[in-house]
């Protein structure tokens, strides 16, 4: 039986620069796969290959057994939610309208149905009271939770999180992580790029350490944190922890 997501020998180049050099891993439904690694290691690029926001030059990515290159890109993205580092909420729409846009214009739901669905998703991230606020009226943490609700409203098979807390003030990180934690508990399949080591350790089913476009280490969170095989992994994790990131 095939996995929900299969990545095989993924190669990505920007000009001459090799950004991803043969990445491979699998995810099953309900998995929470965390990608860590120094900046420039290709984590975000890897994520963006999955929903084809970025083209890749070699290898294969399969969703439910179908190559993403063989799928219509809009159809693929309908099934894969994405949460951005900079939130990227639609600035001219209220929180609720942000969540409604996809269901309405992509899934073709009626206004009433999309409205009800949006309220449900906003409830889920604890923002029903802010439904009529515009992004600029919300805190960063609230904006990111709307961003998550927007992804969830499409009922995706897989959610991609691209450093969802990196643009947030420290005191706002917790609210976003707790929403993500709940999602994981509800069984959402999640592929996350993050530097939040406490989240990774508690929630991840698997952690990959990426460096220079390679997977340096890959495995069970507890093992990776307590007894990494690779010296680079150990150094990287130690540095993150020393900087007080593991709160």
């Amino acid at each position, binding site marked *: 039986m095939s996995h929900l997501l299969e990545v095989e020998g993924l190669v990505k180049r920007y000009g001459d620069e090799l950004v991803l050099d043969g990445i491979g891993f699998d995810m099953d439904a309900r998995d929470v796969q965390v990608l860590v690694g120094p900046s420039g290691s290709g984590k975000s690029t890897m994520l963006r290959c999955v929903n084809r926001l970025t083209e890749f030059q070699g290898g294969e990515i399969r969703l439910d057994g179908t190559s993403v290159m063989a799928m219509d890109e809009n159809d693929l993205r309908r099934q894969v939610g994405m949460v*951005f580092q*900079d939130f990227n909420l*639609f600035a*001219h729409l209220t929180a609720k309208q942000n969540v409604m846009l*996809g269901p309405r*214009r992509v899934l073709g739901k009626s206004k009433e149905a999309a409205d009800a669905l949006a309220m449900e998703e906003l409830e889920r991230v604890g923002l029903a009271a802010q439904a009529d*606020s515009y992004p600029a009226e919300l805190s960063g943490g609230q904006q990111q939770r709307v961003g998550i609700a*927007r992804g969830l409203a499409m009922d995706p098979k897989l959610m991609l999180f691209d450093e969802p807390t990196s643009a947030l003030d420290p005191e706002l990180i917790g609210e976003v992580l707790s929403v993500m934690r709940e999602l994981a508990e509800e069984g959402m399949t999640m592929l996350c790029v993050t530097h939040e080591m406490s989240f990774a350790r508690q929630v991840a089913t698997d952690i990959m350490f990426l460096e220079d476009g390679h997977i340096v280490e890959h495995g069970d969170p507890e093992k990776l944190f307590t007894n990494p095989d690779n010296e680079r992994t150990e150094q990287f994790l130690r540095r993150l922890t020393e900087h007080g990131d593991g709160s």
Partner: protein
Amino acid sequence: MTAALPLATSDWGYVWANLGTLIAAVWPALKLTGAALVVGFVVGVPLGTLEVFGGRRSAWLARKAGVVVRGTPILVIMFITYFGLGLSPAFVAATAALGVRSAAYQGQVFRGALQSIGRGQMEAARSVGLSKLGAIRHVMIPQALRRFVPGFQNEYTIVLKDTSIAFAISYTEIFYHMYNLIPEQTTATPELFLTVAGIYLVLTLTGNRVLDYVDDAFSIPDGGASR
């Protein structure tokens, strides 16, 4: 009288006596302004969008067409539409000329508005499964239109003042009537010019106030952060 402009009470009297004629001509001037701006908007917004999101060929074509039109004097364009293409009455020819030129400028304003929107908006729209066209329509254009208003205010001012050029094809707007008042009392020429300038100034200021209001009404709420 040693002033730079030979102004005289009797000439002001002449202006006063004919002020009604000049003010009555405000309507045709505004009508032409409005029609030209509408043509400019309807043609210019798609052109600006093509420049940003079009294919290589259509973007190139939109860009070149804009350069040619912006590089041609308005009087020449008006002679082309009136004498060359034979559009009539003068209102139609003037609307076409000012409209085409306005499209070339409004297209640039709209292009700038679109380009000022962060890349992330497009990516977010695509990531929920919207097609490129859907993303342009539902996410990019609504935001660009709001950023378009201040540039459009300039365009309103320019088109309004350039309606005076339509006097050259005998469109009976403000300038045309003023011009016809000169032969009867040539000494009143400076007073007539100043009066007409004053009328344009009033129209410019009030029009811009109205557009300020539009800008405000359509601005995206931010909890007062930008005030």
